[in-house]
């Protein structure tokens, strides 16, 4: 076993041990990876929060897209800021309602607002469908790390099977009590590694950021601006908008609004969270630094760029530490996503459908579903050749379809009906699923239309039609909603 593989194996073992120790520890859910942060000093809290935004998506995917696509990767930096500005107004409204009605999960909100358990089931299924590509992304990242760390002795498929085993074992060991310490270790390691690489590599290979970008601009003219077609300005703007609106539609993001102690938390987050986003710059720098040093990684292979340039620049033990940081950034979010998906399926899909299900059955089912969801994710991981970023883009396309039904439910009396909401969500999801499964794009569908239209993110087109169908069906079905039903206490638990 080479030193790099040995180091990540040790870190994996260490994460398992921390998970075991955390069994009796505090409960940690997807929405509060850094829950341990509350008791620490301001500087440490800042570092933890800054490290927290790194998942495999940003670490390998962000650098991979900077490497392979160039300027389109900047969208990752753009949507967060808009999402946090929206959160200042959106989350307090959700928080007040959820607190008053004792809501626990994202589907509960829809069930309560629209007085419709059926809508809750639909929302749950959408959430789980969107979580699957997010999980596939983490597995793929884990697979990449393990196979790269083996220096060619392990195939990607073998590495993915090792990864999923590690992930399931980690979830089973730590159970619902995720390890806060693993999350803290992950946040610190990834921050040190990402910022370290992003500063060191451009200086080492080019003598600074300016010379690096000048060299890239010279070698690949136009790479640092958006292209005229494909991932053009139109794609960029629609993708940033869609992702910003979808940011809090994720079940974990949405439910994080419930856990706040007071509304002031949201006000502060809107100021501080955009600043944390800026650490993404270092990930971009690493990807850019790799372009001229490890050329030739085509398509989804771009996700390997960070690890490949690390292998070029450092001896195996250091590479092992970088891999270990990457491993934790996949393991910690991956385990939370897996748990969340299994829990939603059990609590918000199975229980409403099968009356009289006991709490124990729901818990047992959730645990039993963990390996099932994991295996499904493995199938997608091994069958699809997608890069990491398009996987999350697909997840966002799916999950943002919940936005119209949510935003129209916010007034005291919802502006949409339950049938309208369902029709809108189904329309949006159908378009996204059809486009994704059949590979149909607007450009193929409307070859003569200008690229300003055909380059639009399909998710934004789906959401527009979703809105239209929702409003139309709501207008037709409006009188069926009795006005007095709105103020009744929530039926949801």
């Amino acid at each position, binding site marked *: 076993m080479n030193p790099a593989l040995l180091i990540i194996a040790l870190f994996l073992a260490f994460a398992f041990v921390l998970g075991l120790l955390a069994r009796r520890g505090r409960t940690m859910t997807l929405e509060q990876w850094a829950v341990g942060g509350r008791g620490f000093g301001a500087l440490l809290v800042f570092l933890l929060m800054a490290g927290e935004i790194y998942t495999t998506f940003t670490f390998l995917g962000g650098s991979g897209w900077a490497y392979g696509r160039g300027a389109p990767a900047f969208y990752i930096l753009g949507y967060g*800021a808009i999402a946090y500005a929206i959160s200042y107004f959106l989350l307090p409204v959700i928080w007040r309602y959820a607190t008053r009605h004792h809501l626990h999960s994202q589907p509960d909100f829809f069930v309560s607002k629209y007085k419709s358990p059926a809508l809750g089931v639909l929302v749950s299924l959408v959430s789980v469908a969107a979580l699957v590509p997010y999980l596939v992304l983490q597995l793929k990242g884990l697979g990449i790390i393990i196979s790269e760390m083996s220096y060619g002795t392990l195939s990607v498929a073998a590495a993915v099977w090792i990864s999923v085993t590690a992930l399931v074992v980690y979830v089973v060991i730590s159970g619902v009590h995720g390890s806060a310490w693993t999350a803290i270790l992950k946040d610190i390691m990834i921050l040190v590694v990402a910022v370290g690489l992003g500063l060191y590599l451009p200086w080492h290979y080019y003598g600074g950021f300016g010379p690096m970008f000048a060299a890239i601009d010279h070698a690949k003219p136009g790479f640092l*601006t958006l292209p005229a077609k494909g991932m053009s300005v139109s794609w960029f703007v629609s993708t940033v908008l869609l992702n910003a609106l979808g940011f809090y539609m994720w079940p974990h993001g949405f439910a994080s609004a419930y856990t706040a102690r007071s509304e002031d938390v949201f006000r502060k987050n*809107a100021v501080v969270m*955009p*600043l944390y986003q800026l650490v993404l710059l270092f990930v971009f720098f690493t990807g850019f630094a790799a372009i001229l040093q490890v050329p030739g990684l085509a398509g989804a292979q771009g996700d390997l760029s960070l690890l490949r340039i690390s292998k070029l620049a450092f001896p195996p033990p250091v590479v092992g530490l970088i891999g270990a940081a990457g491993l934790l950034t996949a393991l910690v979010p991956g385990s939370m996503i897996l748990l969340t998906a299994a829990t939603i399926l059990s609590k918000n899909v199975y229980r409403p459908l099968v009356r009289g299900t006991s709490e124990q059955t729901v818990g047992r089912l959730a645990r039993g579903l963990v390996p099932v969801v994991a295996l499904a994710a493995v199938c997608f991981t091994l069958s699809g050749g997608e890069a990491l970023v398009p996987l999350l883009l697909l997840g966002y396309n799916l999950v943002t379809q919940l936005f119209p039904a949510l935003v129209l439910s916010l007034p005291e009396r919802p502006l949409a009906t339950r049938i309208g909401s369902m029709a809108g969500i189904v329309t949006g999801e159908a378009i996204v699923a059809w486009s994704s499964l059949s590979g149909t794009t607007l450009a193929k569908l409307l070859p003569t239309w200008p690229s300003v239209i055909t380059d639009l993110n399909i998710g934004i087109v789906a959401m527009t039609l979703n809105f239209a169908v929702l409003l139309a069906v709501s207008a037709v079905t409006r009188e069926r909603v009795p006005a007095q039903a709105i103020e009744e206490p929530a039926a949801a638990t």
Partner: protein
Amino acid sequence: MRRVPLHRWLAVVPGLLILGGVPFANRVHRLVLGLPFLLLWIVGCVLLTSATMALIGSLDAKAARSAGASPDPPDRDALR
């Protein structure tokens, strides 16, 4: 419908600068301060978002104070 306080509309400015500004920022093909201009533009918008939300937060806190429904003091100070 309740009236939205005027200062809260400031929140749309950074978002509009990202969504509406990118088509123009993308026309600059030079490096500025060593960075691609588009990247620098987005970084600027992110910083502006933070500053704008801080301003809105303090104006909201001020409005809440003058309305008598003052939020608890320690959190209010942390916003500045």
